[in-house]
């Protein structure tokens, strides 16, 4: 890990909504190819953290270095174009569309033909469509969801929807992947699959992953390093094994129902 170079560095980030503090100067870094987990009780500011990273929220204080460049105020779209993809805590699929179309939207950053070409289904536009369809099909094959390809996402089970959301994120071929509780509300089998996929994404495609997850077992198994948040403050950071010993962490998190 140590010699791997840093992809993302956050320095004393503070974020508040109309006076309510969500995050108080939090600093940590994410290294190339690692699985970096963020844990903490509900309302610890985990999701806000992700929202800061991909520019949905703009912290009042602190600086974000992405690939060694200080990141100015940016919106999610730019983040996406820089190779940051994510999934959401409560599924954010496009309910009105099929699985295939949902995943296709993930390719959007890769598609450049303008609407005029699209309108005439012109050579370049059509070829682009086909090219990206193929890419998407590879993702579908990778996540083993061929059988629901043309199903409207609304009709799918919760577990499958989560998987489709991951597919949509992967379709963008991200270099940094933010996963917000990808296994929440899944049964054992689904969790096993999801773990397998996350690990493969990380190992096969060398995607750096920032993971929020409640299932401590999973976190300890698959993550390289873990950040622990509590009430918007960082109370621990390090290797999973070490954190198990950290008293603050135990009291704040492991001690509680999890």
């Amino acid at each position, binding site marked *: 890990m140590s010699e791997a170079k840093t992809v993302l560095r956050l320095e004393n980030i503070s974020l508040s*909504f109309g006076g309510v503090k969500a995050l108080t100067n939090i600093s940590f870094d994410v290294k190339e190819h690692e699985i970096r987990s963020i844990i903490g009780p509900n309302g610890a500011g985990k*999701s806000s953290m992700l*929202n800061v990273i991909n520019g*949905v*929220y703009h912290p009042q204080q602190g600086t974000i270095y992405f690939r060694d460049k200080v990141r100015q105020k940016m919106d999610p779209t730019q983040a996406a174009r820089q190779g940051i993809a994510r999934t*959401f*805590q409560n599924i*954010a699929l496009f309910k009105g569309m099929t699985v295939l179309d949902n995943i296709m939207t993930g390719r959007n950053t890769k598609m450049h033909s303008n609407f005029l070409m699209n309108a005439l289904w012109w050579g370049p536009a059509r070829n682009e469509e086909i090219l990206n369809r193929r890419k998407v099909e590879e993702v579908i094959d990778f996540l083993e969801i061929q059988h629901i390809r043309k199903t409207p996402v609304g009709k799918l089970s919760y577990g499958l929807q989560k998987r489709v959301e991951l597919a949509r994120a992967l379709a963008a071929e991200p270099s940094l992947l933010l996963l917000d509780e990808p296994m929440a509300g899944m049964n054992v089998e689904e969790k096993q699959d999801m773990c397998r996929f996350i690990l493969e994404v990380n190992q096969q495609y060398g995607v750096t992953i920032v993971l929020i997850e409640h299932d401590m077992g999973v976190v300890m198994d698959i993550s390289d390093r873990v950040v622990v948040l509590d009430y918007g403050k960082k109370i621990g950071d390090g290797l999973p094994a070490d954190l198990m010993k950290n008293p603050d962490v135990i009291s704040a998190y492991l001690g509680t129902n999890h």
Partner: protein
Amino acid sequence: MLFFTEIVISGIFSGLMYALVALGFVLIFKASGVFNFAQGAMIYCAALAVVGLIDIGLPMWLAVIGSFVFMVFIGFGTQRFMLSKLVNQPPITLFMATIGLSFFLDGLGPILFGSDVRPINLGIVDEPIQSIMDNTGIGISKFDLTASGIIILLVIVLTLLFQYTKIGRALRAVADDHQAALSIGIPLKNIWTIVWCIAGFVALIAGLLWGSRNGVQFALSLTALKALPVLILGGFTSVPGAIIGGIIIGVSEKLAEIYIPPVLQDAFGGNFGGIESWFAYVFALVFLLFRPEGLFGEKHIDRV
């Protein structure tokens, strides 16, 4: 200068009229989150009901009561047959439903009470008040003054109602958070029905005033749309906002009507009257670009 003041004053008066309409929107939106496009149609219906009942020989006061009853019916009907079937639909759907409702009412009113244009006589003459005229030289119509008086009175009554009665508290609770309201056992449906009735009452007042000003006609239904820009300024949820927004719109509109056409005339020649038809909307539109949340509304962050 004098001329200017007069315009401003008349602007304020007409603004208050808009505000009155806007009030109806606000009430319903606050309580049920429904953007009631049909408010204008309700005004039209209310006014029609009054004149219609007078036509069949009822005295004014009875006609008004009758009209109110009619509005209550509409309120119940809307709740029973429309809104209760559209719970948990996206607001835009409800909005479109109310457009449907406005068409329905625009049709229903005339069928029941006749469609030909008729005046309402409130017994207040529309002439300047001499005393003021003499002292300041500014003409202020008795009618306008009384009308505004009524409006302000209405606002005060409503405010008190909201503040100090059980229903009022319930209403505010609902406005803040539906789920919470439900959980503490406030029967949403009834609340909403009540609100619709109150809105109906406001519409009735508006109908009377507008009607006696320019006679009861379909145009009412459209003129009422002016309340929309007012709402955008004042925000959908604030009663004072409605008043102030109304006044702003009213005044600016009048001023525009007076001062812009000549300019255009010099530029292009021809007649450029009738600016009121759009000024309010464009004004609101431009305003939106700078303050989407309105004068008093607060910014909200959508969580992900």
